[in-house]
């Protein structure tokens, strides 16, 4: 079981890598028509009709001049490279199956929930991330472009998990042996994966708006190829709004567990500090998003910072601060 799990991890990583490259190929060769369309009907289209998606009002005055953008121009549908996008999604699908079996067989081998260490934790977050992504795609075809950003995250995180964090199967230490463990970790993994997809969406939105504002440096140069930025931004908000209460619940469950195990619900140890920071930053994002006078791109930056604080808690606190602690103890 353990070998099967380890072997399938490689299949997972390669599939995600393929998906990432196929998405990139779609940007490079496949979307001339799509991009042309997106640029031809530029910014004033604050009200966007996606393929079959409902009308969404962006601002109170938006209904005055409804402009329509079609993401899939007829020219593009016949383009020679049109297969690239669907192929990328297919590769993602293959990856997610391998990924799911990796996680499940790991759990069977360890005879417990596979959330016992950082390796398993990252694998669970990325698995759920891909599931969330495919689910999103199912309901909103027109955001397929976002796949490149999602897959970059997946490849990076699964790669780091496999190459750096890998730990052989082992038991759970008694301190973790509590049903609060399942509840707390489950909520944290779920919200982290949602934040991950939402963060990818915010980054894509920032690249596009940066491009529209004349930036051409590094990533921005490629912003011209990104369509549907508004839909992606809305998706980002909805994912954040979905994730935030789950994250809040996860932190609360952690506090209750800490009370049961250590006698205090909050002790400001580095994990708790960074959970608090992420929570406050995401509360800031929701505020910024709800304030009309604050630009959407500002809100998106806050979301990206929020995701960075989540990553800081996942990697930084586990690796960097334990080092600091032992240093402090010398």
């Amino acid at each position, binding site marked *: 079981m353990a070998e099967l799990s380890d072997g399938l991890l490689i299949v997972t990583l390669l599939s995600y890598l393929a998906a990432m490259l196929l998405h990139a190929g779609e940007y490079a060769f496949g979307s001339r028509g799509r991009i042309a369309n997106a640029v031809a009907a530029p910014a004033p289209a604050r009200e966007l009709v996606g393929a079959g998606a409902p009308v969404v009002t962006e601002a109170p005055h938006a209904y005055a001049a409804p402009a329509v953008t079609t993401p899939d121009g007829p020219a593009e549908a016949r383009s020679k490279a049109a297969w690239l996008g669907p192929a990328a999604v297919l590769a993602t699908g293959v990856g997610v199956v391998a990924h799911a079996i990796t996680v499940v067989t790991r759990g069977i081998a360890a005879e417990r929930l596979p959330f016992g260490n950082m390796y398993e934790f990252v694998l669970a977050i990325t698995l759920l991330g891909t599931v969330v992504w495919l689910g999103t795609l199912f309901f909103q075809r027109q955001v397929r472009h976002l796949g490149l950003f999602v897959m970059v995250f997946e490849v990076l995180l699964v790669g780091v998990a496999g190459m750096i964090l890998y730990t052989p199967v082992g038991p759970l230490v008694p301190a973790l042996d509590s049903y609060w463990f399942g509840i707390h970790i489950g909520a944290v993994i779920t919200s982290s994966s949602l934040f991950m997809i939402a963060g990818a969406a915010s980054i894509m939105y920032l690249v596009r708006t940066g491009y529209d504002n004349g930036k051409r440096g590094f990533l921005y140069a490629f912003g011209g190829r990104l369509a549907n930025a508004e839909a992606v931004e809305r998706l980002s908000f909805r994912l954040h709004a979905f994730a935030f209460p789950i994250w809040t619940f996860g932190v609360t469950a952690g506090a209750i567990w800490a009370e049961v195990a250590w*006698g205090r619900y909050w002790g400001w140890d580095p994990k708790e500090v960074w959970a608090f920071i992420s929570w406050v930053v995401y509360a800031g994002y929701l505020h910024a998003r*709800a304030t009309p006078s604050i630009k959407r791109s500002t809100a998106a930056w806050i979301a990206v910072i929020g995701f960075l604080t989540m990553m800081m808690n996942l990697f930084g606190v586990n690796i960097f601060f334990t080092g600091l602690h032992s240093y*402090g103890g010398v």
Partner: protein
Amino acid sequence: MSVTEAAVENPPTGEPPRRRTPRIVAAGWAAARNGWRQLTSMRTALMLLFLLAVAAIPGSVLPQRSVKVEDVQGFYAANPDLAPVLDRLWGFDVYASPWFAAIYLLLFTSLIGCIAPRLRDHVKALRSAPPDAPKHLDRLPQSAVLDTVTDEAAARAALRGWRTVRREHADGTVTLAAEKGYLKEAGNLLFHSSLLVILVGVGLGSLWGWHAGRLIVTGPEQVFCNTVQQYDDFGLGPRVGAGDLPDFCLELLDFRAEYRPDGMPISFAADVAATDSAHGDLGRHTFSVNHPLRLSGANVYLLGHGYAPVLRYTDAAGVTQETVAPFPYTDATLTSEGVAAFPDANGSDKTKQMAFSGTYMPTRDGPPYLRSDHPEERNPALMLTAYRGDLGLDAGIPSSVYDLDQRQLDAGRLTKYGEPKLMRRGETWTLADGSKLEFVGTRQWITVSIRHDPGEPIVLTGAVLLLVGLPLSLYGKRRRVWLRLRPDGSAAAGGLPRTEYPGFEDEFRSLVERWQR
């Protein structure tokens, strides 16, 4: 305004310039109002949230007294120049610092200033009817002209669950105005108010709460009673006096640890007998790592465990003393290091006190006798070195009971006596002066944290309210619809989502369909 002009305007008559006072007051009032408006704006809330997040960072980078005092001492030792500066800036007590408090108190002031008027407005909105239909329904985000219309009663039936108001106009036109989604604002207010509840709970807890730590060895003569004198370390809230502590006592009857063959722990459980002065016997209790012992007024949490060698020393004059010396562990296999002191050995001669310092290994079959192979006592070994001299116990300087006094060693007042010796359970070691040390056996010890936080139920209530309010607020959708029925049988409908709501069109369309039937 130059000085001369001012002098002209307000000639120095000796009388106070009467006009100026109210102007200053007015200006002050305006500034205060302006400041308040600034403070309670969303932008300020956002800034303060961001500031709070940034201000929390140093507390994860620097060691904190509230988390681990030893780390702070270690930092001081490693950075003797930097540490005092950081300390003056509250760098080791970030979350109790005035600057951290300033940020969250401002934020909570802003929060109160923000929710109070919204609460008032929401109550008003709940009590007043949805407004009448605008003249041009077709200018709303959603609108429809209805060709066939149901009767009014059926139209109203379609609006079940909506807050609906019927208005009849002079020309015979009837409008239905309906609104839904009041829970969104209610949830938002509940959510923000619950943050205040949590703050109050945290505040109460820190004022009236207390915590303490203690090591307890098995055995009736090692009973621990909950008083300040018996704590190894403690922290009492500003409103807690030593006399407020509940007066229970605990005797550790037994401690059971289970380990896997590779030394990984499986489970821990401590059996204690509890008593208090009001009830006498409180019975026998078992508690473990994720299952604390909950007594009235205090919870007891199991933190760690280890072994205490029992040693019997008979000095050259034949006087026998026995001591139980808890040895703190230094690694996961419970290699433990400590000291057994016999200050009363050899009469009252302070230069001939005895102490034995060394390492206890619960499982060790052969040399080198440096570390244990397993945390369970399978083949215990005790490696001891004898010391003789002045232990320095009554120098008035507090010293650790787990170490020899380094000052006495350095000064040569306390010296090694003979060679180190390996002892197995039951063995007796005869020293050069004819005195004897017997390794009688070991006892178990546990460390516990004893805590009381009266704010906990309040914080928990706040957290539950928060978790109820948050989804209501985030997923609630406020929207209004209108239906205008004209006497000539024509009708028009309009809809206005008052919050972002992508599904509103579908909802509106299905309402219109039902109205048209």
